[in-house]
């Protein structure tokens, strides 16, 4: 009679094999979980690396523009009417009085010119001057350099038509679209 076969089979084979299988199963589960976790982390890591490189390139691209952008932001934050007048006063101080005269200034918040085709807020400025050609050119150069948000819509230059009081000064009428933030 074989009384011990079952015990030997149970304790000698079945239980050790079950223990090994359990151990292997635990190992597989652990490794599988780790791999899943790793895959998730790896995907995030790859996204991170891609984003990091992109951010580096973007940072590099905008780093040299940031200074200008800050200045632009300051300019755009100002009211265009007062900014134009302030700048014209400052410009006028550097120019001969008789060769540069602002004779009219109007501001319209209605859309026009470039402002009519874009969603960017803007206003329309109409300014009338009298002055000599070169002095006015210098004044425009200074004004448009100081205020790059001014986009010229129209410029008219006409001689003085008053035959009774002939003058070397010309009449200038400019219309600007002033971008606003």
């Amino acid at each position, binding site marked *: *009679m*074989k*009384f*011990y*076969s079952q015990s*030997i*089979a149970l304790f*000698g084979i079945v239980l*050790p*094999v079950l223990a*090994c299988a359990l*151990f*292997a199963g635990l*190992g597989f589960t*652990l*490794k599988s979980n*780790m*791999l899943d976790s*790793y895959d998730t*982390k*790896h995907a*995030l*890591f*790859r*996204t*991170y690396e891609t*984003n*990091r490189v992109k*951010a580096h390139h*973007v940072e590099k691209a*905008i780093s040299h*523009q*940031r200074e200008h*952008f800050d200045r*632009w932001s300051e300019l755009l934050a100002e009211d265009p009417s007062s900014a134009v007048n302030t700048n014209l006063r400052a410009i006028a101080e550097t120019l001969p009085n008789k060769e540069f005269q602002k004779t009219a200034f109007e501001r319209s918040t209605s859309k026009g*010119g*470039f402002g009519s*085709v*874009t*969603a*960017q*807020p803007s206003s329309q400025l109409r300014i009338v001057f009298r002055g000599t050609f070169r002095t*006015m*050119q210098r004044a*425009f*150069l200074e004004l*448009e350099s100081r205020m*790059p*948000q001014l*986009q*010229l*819509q*129209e*410029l*008219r*230059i*006409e*001689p003085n038509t008053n035959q009774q009081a002939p003058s070397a000064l010309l009449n200038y009428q400019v219309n600007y679209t002033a*971008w606003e*933030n």
Partner: protein
Amino acid sequence: MLLRQTSRASNPAWYQEALDLDFQLHIRTDGRVVSAFFFDRHKAQWAKGLELTEADLRDPAKMETSAARILVQARSFKATALGVILHIGDEFATAELKPELDNPASLQELREAAIHKPDTILDDSSIPPEQNSWRVLPYPAQGSGVIGTTITLGRQYAPLLATFRQTGEAGNFPIITHALSAPLVTVMGLAQYAPPTPGKSTIAILQYPWFTALAFFNEHADLLLIRTLQHRLLRHSTQLRHAVATTNASLELIDPDILILSLGQDLDADLQRNLSSAFPSSGISLITPPTPDNIPAWCLEPVIAVTPPPKGATVPSLTFGIMRDEKWALQDFLPPPKEVVEIYPTRAEMRLLHGVRLARVGAFVIAVAVAVWFAFGILEIVRRDAWTFNTNEADFIKTRLQKLSVELQKSEHWDNMLEDRSKAWTSMELLSRLFPERSGVLVKNFSHTVRPDTAPGQAKIGFVKEWKITGLARDEALERLNTLNTQEGISAQFSEVARITGNPVFNPALRTRSIAVNVRTQENGSYKPLPLEETYDTDESSYSFSFDLTITQRFETSDPMAIHVAKAP
């Protein structure tokens, strides 16, 4: 534990028969003398064993001492196991099978039943089974009337053999016991030492001190009957001659050969002569086979038990063939009790246990290998950069990229919106470059307009710039006007302005923009020809022609100067 603390897995002797072991101790008792001999099976050598007495075999205290001495002696011979074969020659009895058990084919079943359920096969049910042991002995001879009988022995030596086995187990030394009926062994040995004469019936008379066994064979040397005559301390049974004669007559044997074997010290030497007078026609022989050194001539059973007939030797009859081959004469009368045997695993179980141990080692190695594999796999994973990566950084860099992207979009947006696409001072520079001083041209009017295209659904919008200049021209200016009225002429002027002012909007080289020019001249109706020295620049009558110049510059939506439609992000 069994594997470590016993040699049952490594020493096969635990599961072998005593007669199959290399080192054997044969103990023979005939009621008068106890003899013991060691037998080295490999060398086929006999040696005298310990001096033993009847008391050594029956007194429990002496049994243990004897067993211990025997174990020491066996170990001194460097034996790894010992077979103890007890030849019981102090008793011999037969008990008849139930008459209805007459099927020779059921002999094997009867053999098993005699061991485990003797009461089911014995005709006399009054014999107590706990004090006796029965073994079936077949009668192969035709016409014997019964298929066999049972040999009965008492169990008085069972404690002795149990003591031997327990001593062996205690010393982790296999001592395998086997109790033989000495007369049965002797009957089996007749085939080698006194083979019956073919064609003649034979009666074998086995003389023992306490009994005489009679074995009757037919003319084919097959066993017809075996019986015994008890005579205890007498030299021989007084009924022997009569018993031989009556049995011979009942079996109708004709002048059988009578073989006498004297199997004890100082037995009746006149038996041959006594029988001669009773059986004058029979050949009566006293058989004295040669025995090995150290073995007395009357001590045949140990020699017969370990000496099989030479290979190829003719077996006299079926009886002698099955007695050794099927071990009818070598049956163990006092085997270990079933409940003792069942304590220990079988040999197959021990092999299984041994194999399982190897399997466990293999499983452990595999488990360790798997663990190492897992460990390396895990180590490989945790050593990668991605494993130690802090996932919060992914969100951080993502947010940072989004912010930077918005910043970049804003920057690009305002970079576009603030492009120098339309400046008053550059247009004035264009005018002064088109008509420099003293070029013979008097400009009367200058207008410049910029209007965007209307193309719904576009991300960027192109635009059109137009310059209109009217004025007067002298003759020398006509060539200039004509030059300006060509694509090359006006493009050259724009290129010059772009270079001088640094304003790329005047650059005509891009394919996404185009320039058109139109100059119309006509005679000045108020022209008055005068000498040159009498004229001045503002005198309109000194100009022979009037002109009308229109320049149109178109920028497509793909042009870098095209304006963004969307609001700043």
